[in-house]
């Protein structure tokens, strides 16, 4: 009975983070944020895009294997929700609720396995960890799915401990599914590495519990299980990463890695110890900002002091010292460029490979500090099990819960305006359409105005209008194909400044742009300048409150002129184009960023299947050369017999998609093996 009481308490408390959204459940349909959270508008329509390693829509197409990881768990939840006729907002809220519920259970399970003296204090400490105000920061700037990593790691540790002690194969199976759930949060390489390092360090601590041989065996199995559960997205990602390792490293060094001075500016020692940073991001009202952030600070001072007390007054265990050891290392990494020993950190940061993954230390490893602090507080309660401390911690827990309600809506519910729906319909109906999105925002993050409740960051248009599109937001700066970036920027400036129609036309046709979409609802100084588009080259189609859609005149539309027959299949990673009659031109173009991973195969209906396969795979004498077209797109030189009058299918395949399928098969094999082992 008592067991269910705990679960009931957790079930009720988990409503806290979604409380502020209850009033929106009926009025709004979707949920967005300001940051990296890619909004899901209509899950079934986005299915093809979400299960592809290649994003053929954004910036002329890019390899986005990390996107796959987002399938689990939130996208799958959305699919289930939509099948049950729930709106995406409702499903998201359900997801948040379940995450917090799982987090509380997992932390409680972990604490209970180590400190099983008082269940009440374990519940309170779990709430303090899971409802730390720090996690509110993850609602605001995107990264939302990463919360699952912070919430479920205690459970993973608990399972690992159980495996070492009892060696139950059911625990290994549980670990497998837990890490499968966490794949969205592990999609960032740095989180994956940190997670693996933390678990392996923990396993090393457990070595003394068993013989070396057995420990090594268990460690290997556990690592294989965790990686195996994520193999379906790791495989294409890893191959991509290894192929572009040099580019990635140099990019990291010059771009994101170089901003640590700004990123770690607020991480002074006091702010780290007492969780006093970024509170201005999630607290809504400036009037109470100082009071509440001060209270947060004092609450952490209490927790930290309590954590230290046993070291001074009690004889502590080795494990206790190990936690302190980890805590100190984490603090050192967190404070990064701040004193003391800032130079030492800088030296390490510049010279030790992979150190650059903590370029924003607070978002990468602060949760480990909170977790270690939680353990220290639990140690304190073990040594001093007086009721007064229980009350003190209860007050802190209630305070944290109240912050969650007070901070209000960090994620923003919104509805898609009708103009957008019209534009989407119009663009999707016209063949071979490609969209240029204006106004230019100069490689900034986009942010909409109140009509879309101020959402921004990753633009929802990319998944909404499911046609290739170019814009110049921040993410354009992140793509590796610099030719495309320059071309987009040049075309945008040409629209604003070029007076020569012929030049403008050639700029547009090189990118293959057929439509121009101008957003009127940007929340910034960037205003809609319609006078520049008063050109006879642009024909206004839709002029709504939130956007205006132009069609580019036919004379500028040279795109795909030699392949304008029927497109039979159009998937992000597979395009099959059917042409009838003789092929005059011996060049074929694909308007996606040049990538050697794109393969072209020809299929002649007049020949047998065997002959076609032989022709394409064994003696490829039809497709001769793959090269760049206009500096950024793909061009193939082909040789087709002149007397060939049958139907020819052009099959464009993005090869790494196959790795995804191989990965899925391997993961399924792993599940089967684990289930069989469990049965035995």
């Amino acid at each position: 009975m008592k067991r269910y009481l705990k679960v009931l308490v957790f079930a009720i408390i988990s409503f806290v983070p979604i409380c502020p959204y209850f009033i929106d459940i009926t009025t709004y349909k979707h949920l967005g944020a300001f940051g990296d959270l890619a909004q899901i508008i209509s899950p079934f329509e986005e299915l093809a895009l979400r299960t592809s390693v290649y994003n053929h829509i954004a910036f002329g197409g890019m390899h986005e294997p990390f996107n796959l990881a987002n399938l689990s768990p939130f996208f799958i939840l959305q699919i289930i929700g939509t099948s049950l006729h729930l709106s995406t907002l409702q499903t998201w809220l359900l997801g948040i609720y379940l995450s917090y519920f799982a987090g509380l259970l997992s932390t409680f399970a972990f604490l209970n396995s180590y400190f099983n003296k008082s269940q009440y204090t374990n519940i309170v400490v779990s709430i303090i960890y899971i409802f730390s105000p720090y996690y509110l920061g993850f609602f605001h700037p995107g990264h939302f799915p990463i919360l699952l990593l912070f919430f479920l790691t205690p459970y993973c540790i608990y399972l690992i401990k159980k495996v070492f002690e009892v060696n139950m194969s059911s625990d290994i199976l549980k670990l497998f599914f837990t890490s499968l759930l966490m794949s969205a949060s592990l999609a960032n390489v740095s989180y994956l590495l940190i997670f693996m390092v933390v678990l392996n360090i923990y396993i090393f601590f457990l070595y003394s519990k068993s013989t070396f041989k057995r420990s090594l065996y268990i460690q290997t199995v556990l690592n294989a299980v965790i990686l195996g559960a994520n193999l379906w997205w790791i495989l294409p990602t890893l191959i991509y990463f290894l192929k572009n390792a040099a580019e990635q490293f140099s990019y990291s060094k010059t771009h994101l890695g170089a901003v640590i001075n700004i990123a770690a500016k607020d991480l002074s020692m006091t702010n780290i110890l007492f969780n006093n940073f970024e509170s201005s991001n999630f607290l809504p009202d400036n009037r109470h900002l100082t009071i509440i952030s001060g209270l947060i600070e004092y609450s952490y001072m209490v927790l930290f002091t309590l954590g230290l007390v046993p070291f001074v007054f009690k004889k502590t265990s080795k494990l206790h010292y190990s936690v302190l050891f980890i805590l100190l290392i984490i603090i050192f990494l967190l404070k990064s460029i701040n004193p003391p020993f800032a130079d030492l950190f800088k030296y390490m940061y510049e010279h030790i490979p992979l150190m650059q993954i903590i370029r924003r230390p607070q978002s990468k490893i602060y949760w480990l500090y909170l977790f270690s602090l939680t353990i220290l507080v639990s140690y304190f309660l073990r040594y001093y099990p007086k009721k007064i401390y229980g009350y003190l911690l209860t007050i802190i827990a209630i305070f944290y819960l109240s912050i969650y309600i007070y901070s209000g809506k960090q994620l923003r519910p919104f509805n898609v305006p009708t103009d957008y729906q019209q534009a989407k319909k119009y663009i999707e109906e016209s063949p071979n359409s490609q969209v240029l999105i204006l106004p230019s925002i100069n490689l900034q993050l986009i942010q909409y105005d109140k009509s879309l409740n101020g959402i921004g960051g990753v633009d929802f248009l990319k998944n909404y209008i499911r046609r290739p599109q170019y814009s110049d937001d921040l993410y354009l700066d992140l793509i590796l194909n610099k030719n495309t970036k320059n071309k987009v920027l040049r075309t945008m400036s040409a629209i604003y400044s070029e007076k020569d129609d012929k030049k403008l036309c050639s700029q547009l046709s090189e990118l293959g742009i057929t439509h121009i979409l101008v957003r009127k609802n940007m929340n910034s100084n960037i205003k809609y300048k319609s006078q520049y588009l008063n050109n006879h080259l642009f024909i206004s189609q839709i002029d709504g409150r939130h956007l205006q859609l132009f069609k580019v005149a036919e004379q500028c539309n040279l795109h795909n002129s030699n392949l304008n027959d029927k497109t039979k299949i159009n998937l992000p990673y597979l395009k099959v184009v059917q042409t009838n009659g003789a092929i005059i031109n011996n060049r074929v173009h694909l308007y996606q960023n040049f990538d050697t991973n794109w393969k072209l195969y020809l299929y002649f209906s007049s020949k047998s299947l065997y002959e076609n396969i032989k022709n394409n795979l064994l003696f490829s004498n039809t497709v001769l050369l793959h090269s760049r077209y206009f500096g950024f797109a793909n061009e193939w030189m082909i040789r087709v017999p002149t007397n060939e009058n049958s139907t020819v299918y052009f099959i464009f395949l993005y090869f790494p998609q196959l790795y995804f399928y191989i990965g899925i098969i391997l993961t399924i094999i792993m599940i089967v093996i684990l289930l069989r082992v469990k049965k035995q």
Partner: protein
Amino acid sequence: MINKIIYNFLVPNFILSLFLVFFFGSPILINDYRLLTIELPLKYQLNNNAIYFNPSIENFSVINVGIRKINTNDSHVTFLLTDEVANKTLTLSKVNVQGIYRLSTYPFGINPDFESYSKRYKLQFLSSKNKPLQFEINQDYPITGLYKFDRSILLDPNKALKFLFQKFQQYIEIAYQSNQIFFYIFPLLIYNFLSLPIIAIKKLRQFILDFLNSESIITSVTLIVLLCIYFFGLINTNPSDVQIVVFSTLWALTVYFHRRTPKASFTLALFFVMHIPFFKLVHLDYASNNFAVWTYVFLAFGLLHVLLDEAHARYGLVINPKFYPSVKGSLLFQKKTISKNLTNHNIISISITVIVIISIGFSFLIIFQKLRKYYDRNLKSPRITVVEPMLVYHSTKVVLYGKSFGEKKDERFRIMRNGKEIRTDYWDDSKIIFTIPLDWKPGEYSIWIERPIEWNTETIIEKTKPQTIKVLPITGKITPDDDLYFKQMDSLRKETKEINGF
């Protein structure tokens, strides 16, 4: 900061130990020599017989006696044996011995710890006739057969570590016995590199203790250090790493001298963290940050102390360094203590090993980088190899041969004479020609080349070493200098001669 520590502490330390080993042998070897100065009364005559020790005795530990020649008048020699050996019978062949005497104390000031496992023995010669010329160690002594490789040990870290250590021991033994200094010098270097600072600290502690000879003074020193930290925390708005290092070193020394437990550091951490809320209330942000930093430092200290205590309890090696009278003796001691304590393998042992390995690797890396930069710079900086001719008259053309002169792109490429620029006739990467102007007075001049080089993202003006040329006066008479001028003509390069019209 890290560079400062490395360059000012680790690298000099390393170089010092390098010198010590090359010039005096290692600290271990120094002790060896000390041990070998055995006082012997000169009474007896020698013949050519030698002593052979029985090779069947295991763990045979006498090394240095075998190297030493015995004087003709020696009546006895002393040597060391481990207890294990001594308990067995020591058989000596081809020599008559009066008896072996066990001596329990050492007259040579060797660390008494050594006594615990070995004893000094005295070998009395019966008569002058039978006295050996030399002690010899049987070189066939089967050292290599001592340790057998067993594959199963690789699966057990305890065994594997032990095995590795044994291999290391063996390696030094063999190298030492075969007198191949090259092979055992590097392990010894590492040993010295690690032991020197510890020895230094120990000596310092002894020195200060002797000097003060009072616990109460140390207590007051502790208080002063703490007060300094406290007030600097209050006053200093911008604390530097140097300050933290200095104060924390002082704190470390006080902990060490006063034999405090790690709890002292933890208490201080708690003491400092308690201040922060009050500073926050009065908006002294810098002070609260300083105190947070000190909280961190004291916590780190406490933890380090715990780790060292643990290591000490396990191995007794890290904080209590010992002088050992011989390589073998020291190794035997280490083998005993480590193998005794290495039964439980845990994270602390691993971390200490890792720290030691990393620090050694790190210092090697730094030295390597320094060397690489030095060579890199050397490669770029100009160098004059030949100046022809060295003795010159006015309007003689002087040719400078060398390398890395560069192309004369701007004014920063120039030849200098006693600090003033000289006009050049020709300049390329390996050759510069200039004419001695008429306004130079006869006498010696030093000339050098300056050029800018890009190095380490900076532009530095690099100079060559100054070269001396002598301008000779034209007098009408033939002076000894003129003789020399014509003499040098024979050795000049053909090119130089042609340039000067010969």
